């Protein structure tokens, strides 16, 4: 069986959940090999984690000479690793950085790139067939790579992580990074403040607020905390300055696909729907019974979110005991 490379999604060595989803997908396609590009002193910690989800090999790329630059050095490192390992496919988390790494890698390797897959399954002969959700979630597309090594970026929540012990054999890999790859410099980085809530794109439940909040997100946040959910916002709420852009769900914000999406005071413009339409269960609370959001819902309440949400939150907390 051929190796399938999985680029580990992490922040300073702290492995994020999409990594385990990608490893689970990789196991369907071949032998998962995790590729960890990060601080070398965190490598053993990372290895312990990824081998629990089936990583047979762990390539450790010390990022000492890569960090501080945007995208290009990582793409160069991965291209060299692909030449060495000849994998059956490369799976990359579908973050902004992941997609751009994929773009550069695609040209370097003269290989097809598929982005934002929501499912990947082995097709004829084992080659990956991807599922994507397009046109604001109105169409489902199946695609495959026809040239080179398939490069696939996969969205969070695309598979349920399955534990399965892998060998986790560590192999250090030292790429040669060219000077031309070191031309876009990260001058400063301000890590996002932890909210104490799940990350928006990875959360199983998302509670969002829009124009109807009038700028008061307290009822949204209280319901989110009762449900263990992430908080999201519509573009209207972000443009009004009520919430930072990083909370925006929609075409120009985050695309989410949680088990449950609760839209509060959000009318449901196509740009917002594009970011949440594939959620498994959709609930809406809105004063306007004509709001297009109600066309999507499994359950809707026509009412004022400022009274409905606090009462619902109290009821939920009571039921939880």
């Amino acid at each position: 069986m051929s190796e399938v490379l999985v680029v580990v999604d992490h922040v300073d060595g702290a492995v994020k959940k999409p990594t385990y989803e990608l490893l689970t997908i990789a196991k369907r396609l071949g032998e998962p090999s995790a590729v960890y590009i990060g601080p070398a002193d965190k490598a053993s910690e990372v290895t312990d984690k990824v081998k629990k989800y089936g990583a047979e090999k762990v390539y450790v790329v010390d990022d000492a000479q890569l960090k501080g630059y945007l995208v290009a050095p990582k793409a160069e490192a991965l291209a060299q690793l692909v030449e060495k390992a000849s994998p059956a496919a490369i799976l990359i988390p579908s973050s902004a950085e992941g997609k751009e790494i994929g773009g550069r890698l695609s040209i370097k390797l003269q290989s097809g790139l598929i982005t934002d897959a929501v499912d990947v399954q082995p097709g004829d002969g084992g080659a990956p067939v991807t599922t994507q959700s397009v046109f604001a979630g109105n169409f489902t597309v199946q695609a495959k790579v026809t040239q080179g090594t398939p490069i696939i970026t996969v969205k969070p929540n695309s598979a349920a992580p399955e534990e399965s012990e892998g060998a986790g054999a560590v192999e250090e890999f030292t790429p040669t990074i060219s000077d031309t790859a070191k031309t876009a410099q990260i001058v400063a980085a301000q890590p996002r403040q932890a909210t104490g809530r799940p990350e928006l794109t990875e959360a199983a439940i998302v509670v969002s607020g829009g124009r109807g909040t009038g700028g008061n997100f307290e009822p949204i946040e209280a319901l989110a905390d009762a449900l263990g959910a992430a908080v999201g916002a519509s573009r209207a709420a972000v443009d009004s300055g009520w919430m930072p852009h990083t909370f925006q769900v929609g075409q120009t914000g985050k695309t989410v696909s949680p088990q449950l999406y609760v839209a509060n005071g959000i009318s449901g413009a196509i740009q917002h729907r594009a970011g949440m339409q594939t959620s498994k269960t959709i609930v809406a609370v809105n004063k306007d019974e004509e709001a297009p959001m109600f066309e999507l819902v499994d359950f809707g309440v026509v009412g004022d979110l400022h009274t409905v949400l606090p009462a619902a939150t109290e009821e939920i907390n009571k039921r939880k005991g």
Partner: protein
Amino acid sequence: MNIVVCVKYVPDATADRQFESDNTVDRVGVDGLLSELDEYGVEQSLQIKEKAGDDTTVTALCVGPEKALDAVRKALQMGADKGVHVIDDAIAGSDAAATSLVLAKAIEKIGAETPVDLVVGGLASTDAGMSVVPAMLAERLGLPQVTLASVVEFQGDQVRIKRDGDTATEVIGGTMPLVLSVTDQSGEARYPSFKGIMAAKKKPLETWSLSDLGVEADQVGLAAAWTEVVDTAARPPRTAGEIVKDEDGSGATALAEFLASKKFI
């Protein structure tokens, strides 16, 4: 400064978007327009020109079928100085990699006399939405990429941007020439003025084919794509859900009841 802004002609997102029988996007049967997110690229290009002075040229570059000229025209109306439309039957069905090849060759041709300092793109197209062409262009042209900017600043040949990265708010710096992409956070795109619309009619507009760019027909198009769409299907409409009216707190109870029935509590 020589700026090239890439603009894409896309099917209107509010129209009934469809696929052709060969699984490519229907770009002819549906009304199209300049991709909304590329307007921000045009806007930032114009703002840079306004700051940098009169010897700056902004060229709007578009690859696409006949109607795609509308996208170039819109950019000219907004204030771009020149337009280039690359049109060739062989391009139909091209994937992102082939599109980036055609764009890269066109950018090289635009820069034949005065080298291009800045290649500008948007956050993503509103049809395919891959968000990878700026990175592919940077790779093909051997340039730095400074992407997904919400704020753009420059001084001399130095560019600095602010952006919402995946895990941090970042400041990215690079030296021109480079590829820049901007998001919808970078500032509202201007509407063409009446004067701008009239002036656009007299602006230079070139139409190039693949042979003008030295690209072979078999390097692009559906047959040369590195990926293949094997199936497209309209998502089945969601089954109508239950909608209740809140009366004296009944909505909250019903909501909690629904969430409990689905085991979310």
